[in-house]
């Protein structure tokens, strides 16, 4: 039914993607997505991330106890009743972690979205328009980048008494977009000089259309990896804010658990079950997101892929280390050069 995309491009050379019929898109996109998943790192990362999203949705329903409900077993190690032990008030740590997942994921994804949208607006505009606009926007992004974000967040959140999750996501999003904007600006600068963009400019396309339909699709990978990076940063920031106790105390997230553990001397009581699981939950989420980012990086730039078997025996019995991007060099003595 569908005509292979490659033949179309040969038939109508020079007109590029604008000339492609609609039917050609799904099959092409499916194939690309498949390559991305085939990357082992990305697949593992996406699987773990999916689990977290699942728990963010169903966590509060499947939690065995109310995370704030007090019990009679104070500071108990893990048992059949309380899988991850209890706190100083007899609260169930496992339930706290399950319920806390939602707040963490919500803030992380919302802040990531806010920061990504801002960085696209500012970075792509600066890179494409150039000139004075670029100077002003770049200076603005650099200023925000250099000012340390975490202390700024701490001060803003502490002045906004008992900020809600949404407000915290807003504060994190507004303070963490600048790195991505910088990367996007550089990428847009290099794309903006390509022939196909010049061509669409010459045919009199409107600026918004060039940005939206010519530039943005080619920036997808950069945007995606920026988004993932910001989500990691936002999650860590939210947990940091909760850990030092300046976030509203009516909700649970992993930082709140650590806040209580630290405040109630969990260390001195050897109550490892109180602070280890929450930290591991953060670490695995962060690792999953980093793996997705590695996947994106390697998808975009094949050179970064870890090479598999690299030692090859030549006919004369020498070993040569093959590396992507390197021209193999035989040393005069034979064998592997140190």
């Amino acid at each position, binding site marked *: 039914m569908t005509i292979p995309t490659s033949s179309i491009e040969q038939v109508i050379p020079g007109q590029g993607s604008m000339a492609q019929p609609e039917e050609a898109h799904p099959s092409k996109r499916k194939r690309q997505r498949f390559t991305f998943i085939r990357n082992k790192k990305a697949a593992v990362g996406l699987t773990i991330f999916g689990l977290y999203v699942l728990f963010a949705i169903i966590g509060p329903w499947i939690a065995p106890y109310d995370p704030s409900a007090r019990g009679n077993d104070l500071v108990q190690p893990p048992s059949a009743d309380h899988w991850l032990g209890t706190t100083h008030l007899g609260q169930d740590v496992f339930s706290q972690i399950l319920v806390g997942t939602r707040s963490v994921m919500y803030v992380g994804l919302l802040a990531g979205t806010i920061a990504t949208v801002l960085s696209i607006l500012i970075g792509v505009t600066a890179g494409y328009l150039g000139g004075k606009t670029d100077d002003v926007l770049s200076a603005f992004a650099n200023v925000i980048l250099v000012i340390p974000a975490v*202390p700024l967040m701490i001060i803003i959140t*502490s002045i906004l008494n008992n900020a809600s999750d949404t407000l915290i996501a807003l504060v994190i999003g507004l303070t963490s977009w600048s790195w991505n904007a910088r990367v996007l600006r550089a990428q847009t600068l290099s794309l903006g000089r390509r022939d196909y963009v010049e061509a669409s400019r010459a045919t009199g396309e409107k600026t918004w259309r060039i940005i939206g339909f010519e530039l943005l699709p080619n920036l997808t990978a950069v945007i995606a990896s920026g988004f993932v990076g910001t989500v990691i940063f936002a999650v860590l920031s939210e947990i940091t804010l909760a850990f030092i106790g300046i976030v509203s105390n009516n909700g649970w997230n992993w930082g709140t658990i650590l806040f209580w553990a630290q405040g109630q001397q969990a260390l001195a009581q050897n109550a490892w079950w109180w602070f280890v699981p929450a930290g591991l939950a953060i670490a695995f989420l962060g690792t999953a997101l980093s793996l997705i980012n590695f996947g994106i990086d390697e998808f975009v730039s094949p050179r970064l892929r*870890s090479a598999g078997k690299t030692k090859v025996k030549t006919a004369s019995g020498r070993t040569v280390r093959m590396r992507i991007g390197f021209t193999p060099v035989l040393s005069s003595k034979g064998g592997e050069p140190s």
Partner: protein
Amino acid sequence: MRYFLQRIAFYLFTAWAAITLNFFIPRLVPGDPVQSLIAKYRGQLSSDAIQSLYVLFGLDKQESLWQQYLDYWKQIFQGDLGLSFTFFPAPVSQVISQALPWTVMLVGITTIISFMLGTGLGVLAGWRRGSWADGLLPVTTFFSSVPYFWLGIIAIYLLAGPDSFFPSSGGFDSGLVPAWDQYFIPSAIQHSLLPALTILISSVSGWILSMRNMMVTVASEDYITVAHAKGLSERRVAVSYAARNALLPNVSGFALSLGFIVGGTLLVEIVFSYPGLGFTLLQALGAKDYPLMQGIFLVITISVLVANLLADVAYLLLDPRTRKEG
């Protein structure tokens, strides 16, 4: 030289932006925060402190916003950051000047070690791709995803204790007086080992990763092949040809990521009760001591700017291209 002047102008502009931000943040608070603070302290605040609070929050209605802004600048140039009420009646500048050396020493030394170690390992991982060095990546990724402070908690749990060599909190033995003598300095070093290790482990992975990626990119350049073809030793090609060129983005990255590292370090100090800015910030947060919080933010920002300027000087020395156009 022109490049250098541009950078200085940029940092002055950023400092201005940070100070202005610092001026406006307290003025955005709705309601009358001073009344709630007075209520919180139940009459323990002196009238001086209350007056300075009204000025801080811009509730001093007798002056226009512009006049307040000018006054604020005048105060900053005099080094007057207001009165702290956690450490009442000490002025904020005095509290900060006591805490600052601790943070600067801890962060400065660990960041430099971490940068050198990470870059070195990154060179190795990028050059010997496909060998055991690839195994570094997942391990370091995991550690960089862990919040600094949680790693600190774990370090205290595993390594510190009553009988352990590592003390679990503080910056020096409680029986000592800060001084440059043979009792105090070893104690201070001993107390800083564990926090420093924590920061090192969490921050080193970023350098490894970015250096590895740069090495991989640089290694496919023609001049590397030429260097190989000339018969230069592997070591010489890796260090003098590839690593030297791959280092540049890492140096500019060093400047930019300082702000993030400082943020993480504040938290490590809190966990270890280390007497630096982070711990002071925690105390200020607990007491809603806004003048102290703002002073700390300002000092951290200015320090990061100075460190950035130093990194720019290093960049200038490393990259001849920036020097040529002067």
